[in-house]
């Protein structure tokens, strides 16, 4: 659960979602699993945060969705990044890199 893991910084969930969806379009459940696996169980995103974030990004036209059948034969909603989403991702990534670099420097020199 999220309470056990470090809380996400404001705005970073959008960045993570956009980054992972750019790598591969997928559905909400798989996305949550992938975040958990890739972060080695450090980040656990619950459905209460994930789905509103997906809907918000969709409402802002940064991602789009379509329905398709999964391997198990179940109908699932698959999300992918739009052109606007890719542009937004670039900007956020640059911003994040600068922020992380600055933070690392501060932690190192003090």
């Amino acid at each position, binding site marked *: 659960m999220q309470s056990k893991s470090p809380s996400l910084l404001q705005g970073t969930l959008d960045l993570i979602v956009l980054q992972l969806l750019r790598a591969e379009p997928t*559905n*909400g*459940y798989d996305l949550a699993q992938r975040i958990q696996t890739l972060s080695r169980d450090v980040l656990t995103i619950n459905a209460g945060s994930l789905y509103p974030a997906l*809907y918000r990004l969709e409402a802002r036209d940064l991602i789009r969705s379509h329905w398709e059948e999964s391997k198990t034969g179940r109908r*699932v909603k698959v999300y992918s990044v739009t052109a606007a989403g890719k542009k937004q991702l670039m900007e956020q990534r640059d911003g994040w890199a600068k922020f992380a670099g600055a933070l690392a420097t501060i932690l190192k020199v003090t």
Partner: protein
Amino acid sequence: MSFLGRAGKWLQAATSRQRLDREMREELDAHLAQATSRFLARGMSEREARQAARREFGHFGSIEQSGREARGAQWITGVGDDLRHASRYFARTPLSSITIVLTLALGIGFGSAGFSVLNGLLYRPAPGVPDDPQLVKIQGRANVRPYARKLSWEELKAYAAQIRTFSSVVGWSAKGVVVDPRIRDRGVISAHAIFVTPTYFRTLDTKFFAGRIFEQSRFDQLSPPELTAIVSYEFARSLDGVDAGALIGRTIAVNGTSITVIGITTPRFNGPVQSGDARTIWLPLSTWETLTGDRHLFSNPDVAVFEALARLQPGVTIADAMPAVRLVASRVRPTASTPDVPGERRTYTGGPETPANLLLTAELVRLRGMMRVQGPYRSELAPEIAIFTTIALLILLVCTTTVNSLLLGAATARRYEIGVRLALGASRWRVVRQLVTEIAILAVLGGLLGMYAFGAMVHVVEVAQDGFDVTPNGTTIIFTVVYALFTATLCGLSPALHATRTALSEVLKESAVTATSRTRLQRVFVVAQIAIAQPLIVSLGAALAFLAQDLRASSHAALREHLIVVSLDTYSGDNFSRPDPTPRLIERLSALPGVTAVVPRPAFGILRVSALPDVPGADSIVNIEADLHYVVPEFLDAVDAPIVLGRGFVAADSLLEIPPLILGDSLARQLFPAGAVGQRVRAVVMPEQRLMQMEVVGVARAGIGGAYMFESDAPMAFAPRRGTRGGALLIRTRGAAEPMLPLIRSTVLLEAPSFPISRLTTMSLFDAEQRDELRGIGAAGLGSGAIALLLAAIGLYAMLAVAVGQRRREIGVRIAVGARRDQVVGMFFMTGLRTALLGLLIGLPFSAVALRMVGAQLQMTVGSLAVVAIIIMSCLVLVAAFASWLPARRAATVDPSLVLRSE
């Protein structure tokens, strides 16, 4: 994303809400199923796996809710929900909803009708004139009263020469003309002619009901005369028996010259400046000399009769154009100015009347309903606007107070429902928003209803018919809606906040805290309302009683059956230079069978008696006003006003040094109780405003008013008449006058064919018309009185309903400890009645003052005023009692066991 794109998304989210919800549920279900499969794969039982998946997932409902919110259209769907709730609530309480709508219709409607008049006067052009910023009036100004002046042909041409400023200039001059429509049995008629430069209709872009514009097109084309005319739709309609469109191509005669009608304008178009006469005919300026015989208009720079408007070149603003206009105006000789006063053609000739500091200018103003007060002169309207705004706000205050009370009552009745909604997790803001939405809907409905109702009323008033456009347009509708929403917030917010404040536990325990201070405030409002309404109702009642009295009896009713008035227009066109038709008409009409006398109708003046020099002992300075009638010697006999003392007038009276005077009997008694004949008075005679001495030679029995006047209630005096020109005749018939009208009409048409008949009626027919009008006024007065009373009653009702609702627990306890139900009802009833009586008591002095004023105006006796006042007071008390009894009765329905059990 752009705003439009986002709005589109919102709209999409709002409209396809159900589909999106369904898809979201399917997606979340799929998520749960996938999680369950994961736990199953770890070896859990089906049940355990499902439970674990649910635990991991969280609360389904709140995820759904935050998902919906994330879609971003929550407020739209929220408003949709509010509207649905509101419509359900209205259907449940139709009576109170209708009451609220009607009350608000009154309050908002009055304000928005006033706004639409103001909008029509100050911000909209006259009907049928385009609202185009490039169209401007060139308004001549002077620095002395009346501050407006007309232009000479020379000045007009100078404006037209400013081609870099104006793309076209229009000039026009109005004049009364006589039109012969050349229809069988239809005599000549007077009309309002506007002589225009050929640029007029093209520049104004006037729409036509039928036909076309003039052939001439150059601004200053003065010859040859183009003998064509364009008439207003109202003019075409006034020729009964002729289909408006069929007038095109017909030849009519204007001042005796044949003219072909080539066009009819759309209804209500009457030029850019209101003229007060919708029977308008437009003629090319080239016909001016032919039709009026005036040869000086275009050559004499001292004749200034033109008004002008212009279309600015594209891209040129009023500010850009002003220097050119000022330059032209500065070259106008001050002697050329004619002040713009209707009916008065005073010219500043450079003589003693011309003010030494006379300064002429000109300015450009947008085409508006009331251009006279545009620009720096707009402040002239300020007092009227201030008075109207105050009245509108007062009415709004009364209405909002009443609605506020009603809403508070409704909210008290709904506190259980509201409490449950709050308990189920609705935020307080959400419930408040719903309550305010409800009242906003009612307010907008009421506002629009009121706007149209008052708009129709304003339309009935003649001012709306020409010159001003007060029909609701986009601006007035937006104003009304905004005004309604403001009102809704004003009267809906506090009951909503109040209703949602109570904690749920208290509601469920049925022990809502009594809001004593609020009830007290409301009581103050109700008292004020009754105190204000009372003088209004009382004075309306007095006026109505007077009207009823007036309708019942006219002192000269029998005589008025035998009198016909015929008036001729002897001034329009070239009629002024024609010989006076009256002597010949008197001769011909007198010879008709059934006619006993024909006399010129008196010319009217006012006699203000200022001193009685020869009355010993009497206070010789008086100030009595009487109607002064200038009459021919035969007149008094013809109208049954015989001389009772002294003598009548004789032809030789004009030779007397001191002018003779005959007094009506009531005036004679008032001035000289000891005998009037031979006495002298010093009096100011209007309209000449001359102070003169006159000698009373006789007294006539004329009563109050006269049999031959349209409106009269003043004492009368008579002086000998000089000259007959004036064109109105009074015809006395032996039998009933009405059947004689066709004969009189055909005789006048035959004998004076070039003089338009402006009025032909019997005095009793006129009375009947007058009575209809009075009845209309009476009904309107009764209506407003009833509304004021109803408002006060609703206020009282609402106040008590709230009190009963809030004091249920107290009522329950009282009944439980042995109070009888009728005692409880009596308690509330008396509270209501006491409030009403307090209001009545406070309003009493105002009523007395109002009654005195109305009574003095209508010359009613103190006795009849007192009767009216007592009747109305009793009505007020009865209505107040009824309004109190209705909610008080509800107190008896409180079940003590229920109330006490829930404690």
